[in-house]
């Protein structure tokens, strides 16, 4: 037994070393390089003196203040609104919909990459887009109306786009947190004391849910504050949000702008830190006010309309997301689709029938990267979890933080520095560096997705195997992994979806040479051919769908004669 524990420690140490060297080191080193450049040190362009000049140049850029404000408004706005909607929907719908049905409803939105949703929404919402075309006969518009919808200077379209992705994500996170709380009993107790359904949710259930969803909310917040691809497509442009402004600076012809761009990357990291601080402050204040409010004991039945409003708004959001994805597919099959027609005037398979024009290669690259990063991340995650099992130790808080680290630091903050570092090591521009950079973001999601099901594995199964003489490796390969096939494949599907969606890491680390569906779709979104963009975006959304489909079908096939392993079946 102690031998197994020792072996477990060895495995754990090995995994930790890999994670530290592979995940933490590049991030820290990348941040360090960026910070040096941000304070004026980039020997390659002859800058070697520590100074605050880059920061001053940045602050003097026209529109910098507006860009900062826009970033905060869109990032915080999308997050706060998403939380409000998701909590409202959970309060209104929980118990009225089976977890499996809601999972099926949410999956397409989780699978579709941000860029694909954004491209579809841009068409749906634009003044000449689908919604305006539907309204045109009613409003008597013979030309697209002079409205400001997509790329509005206040970032409204960007907030909406972020919410289409974030509300489903939050719903899933909250639903999984709720499975750890005796909701029905609390609700019954609360209602018997005369509280309305909504009030019980706000006063009793949410305070228990919050600690369980705090980290995912922080991930979401960091993402919303530093998103690039969605902001390029839906966000304001003059000035854009900070992350887009920085991307422009990093790719400006004037080389000296690399310094203020790096300083901006630090500002971006600072903004995220500030937002986290704000979150903690609000949480503290909320705790104090909440206690006082709960003790006051007001029954307030008036939360119901709010819940239904949240549910209706979420339904509208989901419908917009679904229409956006449908419009991508339609555009890829259209030849001419002029204003004010609701459906294409003429159809053509031309965009699909020329795979040689680029989409075949982009699809192959994307699939290869997704397979490699997911396999790598899964292997590492399983090794980590198995190490925990064998060492009979739970996960320390710092280890959990380590997993989340890549998701909490804004990508643009360390990717430029990391690129310089990789170049110095002569590693840049190949598949390996892109796999590495993507794995930084794929591994955390795979790890998070796999951890809970792994711990929930019935301990009697490996114990029974052990008593029959099976060693730890045999228990892993013949008992644990087969029984955990469904969650492993689900984690793999999530990994694939995350890998497919990566934009900045692929762009920076691939030296632009590795074209994926996402990098091409974002580039094409600023071209004049929506039909070709439609092909890329459809494929980009289709690949993760296929992965989720496989994660659903394969266990059903493999376990067709294992009733106890079916979801919902009894063990």
């Amino acid at each position, binding site marked *: 037994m102690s031998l197994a524990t020792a072996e477990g420690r060895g495995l754990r140490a090995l995994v930790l070393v890999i994670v530290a060297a592979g995940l933490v080191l590049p991030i820290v080193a990348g941040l360090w390089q960026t910070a040096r450049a941000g304070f004026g040190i980039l020997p390659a362009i002859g800058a070697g003196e520590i100074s605050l000049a880059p920061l001053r140049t940045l602050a003097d850029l026209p529109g910098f203040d507006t860009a900062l404000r826009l970033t905060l408004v869109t990032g915080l706005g999308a997050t706060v609104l998403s939380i409000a909607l998701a909590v409202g929907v959970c309060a209104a719908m929980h118990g009225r919909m089976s977890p499996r049905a809601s999972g099926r409803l949410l999956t397409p939105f989780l699978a579709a990459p941000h860029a694909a949703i954004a491209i579809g929404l841009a068409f749906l919402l634009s003044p000449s887009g689908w919604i305006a075309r539907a309204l045109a006969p009613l409003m008597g518009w013979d030309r697209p109306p002079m409205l400001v919808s997509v790329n509005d200077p206040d970032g409204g379209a960007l907030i909406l786009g972020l919410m289409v992705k974030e509300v489903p994500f939050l719903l899933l996170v909250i639903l999984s947190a709720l499975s750890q709380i005796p909701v029905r009993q609390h609700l019954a107790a609360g209602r018997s004391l005369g509280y309305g359904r909504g009030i019980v949710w706000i006063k009793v259930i949410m305070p228990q849910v919050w600690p369980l969803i705090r980290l995912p909310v922080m991930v979401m917040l960091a993402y919303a504050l530093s998103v690039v691809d969605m902001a390029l497509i839906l966000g304001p442009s003059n000035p854009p949000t900070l992350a887009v402004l920085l991307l422009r600076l990093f*790719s400006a*012809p004037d080389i000296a702008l690399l310094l203020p761009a790096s300083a901006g990357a630090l500002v971006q990291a600072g903004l995220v830190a500030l937002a986290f601080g704000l979150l903690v402050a609000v949480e503290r204040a909320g705790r104090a006010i909440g206690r006082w409010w709960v003790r006051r004991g007001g029954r307030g039945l008036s939360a119901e309309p709010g819940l239904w409003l949240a549910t209706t708004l979420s339904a509208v959001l989901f419908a917009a997301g679904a229409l956006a994805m449908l419009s991508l597919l339609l555009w890829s099959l259209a030849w001419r689709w*002029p204003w004010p027609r609701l459906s294409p005037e003429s159809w053509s398979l031309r965009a699909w029938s020329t795979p040689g024009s680029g989409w075949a290669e982009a699809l192959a690259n994307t699939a290869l990267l997704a397979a490699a990063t997911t396999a790598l991340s899964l292997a590492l995650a399983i090794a980590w979890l198995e190490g925990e099992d064998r060492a009979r130790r739970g996960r320390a808080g710092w280890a959990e933080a380590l997993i989340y680290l890549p998701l909490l630091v804004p990508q643009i903050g360390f990717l430029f520095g990391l690129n310089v570092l990789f170049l110095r090591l002569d590693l840049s521009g190949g598949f390996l560096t892109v796999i590495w950079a993507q794995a930084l973001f794929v591994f955390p999601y795979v790890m998070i997705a796999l951890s809970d099901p792994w711990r929930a594995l019935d301990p009697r199964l490996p114990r029974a195997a052990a008593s029959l003489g099976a060693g730890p490796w045999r228990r892993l390969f013949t008992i644990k992994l087969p029984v955990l096939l469904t969650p492993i494949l689900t984690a793999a599907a999530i990994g694939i979806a995350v890998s497919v969606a990566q934009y900045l890491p692929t762009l920076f680390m691939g030296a632009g040479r590795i074209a994926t569906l996402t990098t091409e779709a974002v580039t094409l979104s600023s071209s004049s*051919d929506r039909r070709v963009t439609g092909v890329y975006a459809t494929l980009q959304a289709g690949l993760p769908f296929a992965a989720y489909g496989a994660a659903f079908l394969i266990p059903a096939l493999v376990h067709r004669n294992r009733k106890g392993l079916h979801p919902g079946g009894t063990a």
Partner: protein
Amino acid sequence: MRLITTLSLLAAFAAPPALADWQDTLDAARDQTVYWNAWGGDERTNAFITWVGKQTEARYGVSVRQVRLSDTAEAVTRVISERAAGKDTGGSVDLIWINGPNFLAMREQDLLFGPFVADLPNARYVDLSPGAPAALDFTVPVEGMESPWRLAKFVFTYDSARVETPPRSMAEFVDWAAATPGRFTHPDPSNFMGATFLKQALIELAPDPAVLLEPVTEAAFATQTAPLWEWYDALRPNMWRGGTAFPENQSVQQQLLNDGDVDISVSFDPASTAAAIAQGLLPDTARVFVPEGGTIGNVSFVAIPYNAANAEGAQVVANFLLEPAVQARMQNIEVLGSFSVLDPARLDAETHAAFSALPGAAALPTLEDLGPTLPEPHASWVTHLTEAWARRYTR
């Protein structure tokens, strides 16, 4: 068919014995893969680059991979980061479609390979004498550091079904926009085409356009741009979205024209309208117009970074692009429709015939329709102009 015959004939005679060095380049280039970093926003250009790669592969064993950029500056940044990392050989960028400020930036930082143009066998078809269009890039002498491949000329596109008479001069845009508010815009000046729109107006409105050919000074900038800002302040309130937002580039603006959001778009390629109609990307009624005084024209170049891993292959591609038969194919509206950079006086009768046999199209202007070609201002004006615009009109 005739083009292909011409092509193979040329292939047979393309290696004059005097150029033994060129044979060394060809030998070294064999089996190289050239990473050509080129703006990827135009599907026809992308297809042309693919075709070029197939040809050079078959003839010289040099394959071409296009790295599609959304902005040429990306490639410049990449070379800079490589130098930042001390990667002075084996760089990832072999060939860049470049001109103007990007060329100037790379040139000033010594990031370019060369001079190499005079060593290309096909350079004999190009007028490279000092001051010739192919020897100047935004008035900056090229000095053999980049090789020309296509002509660009600024034009406007409009939908003749919605617009009866387009503006006849830059000054007339103000009245035109006042009569039809919200139907005109231009690409964001941080983009090359948006900057070109401003330059086009500057050339027409500046009190002394000759000053624009000299490097900019603060005093000259203030005097020469004063009428421009006055004009722009009158135009802007009647632009699309009240002049508070701008399409990212000309492709996005072409899509706005196709969607009916605006009535006018801009292009640096006179053939792009006819091409877009053929591709179903613009209505059949789209046409080209230019202001009466003529428009800015320039030459697009390809350059090789100093650390290119496949510099020999890149030279082979640059040379191939100057092949008369390749230039004739490029000027074919059914292929790309870009005007050739070759000097007609240096071409033989057969090549002349190949050029004049090229097909036409309803929306394709003739050279006469396009009016005089105005020189680009010195590259330093562009940077000043876009910065001043950003300071004035960014919230």
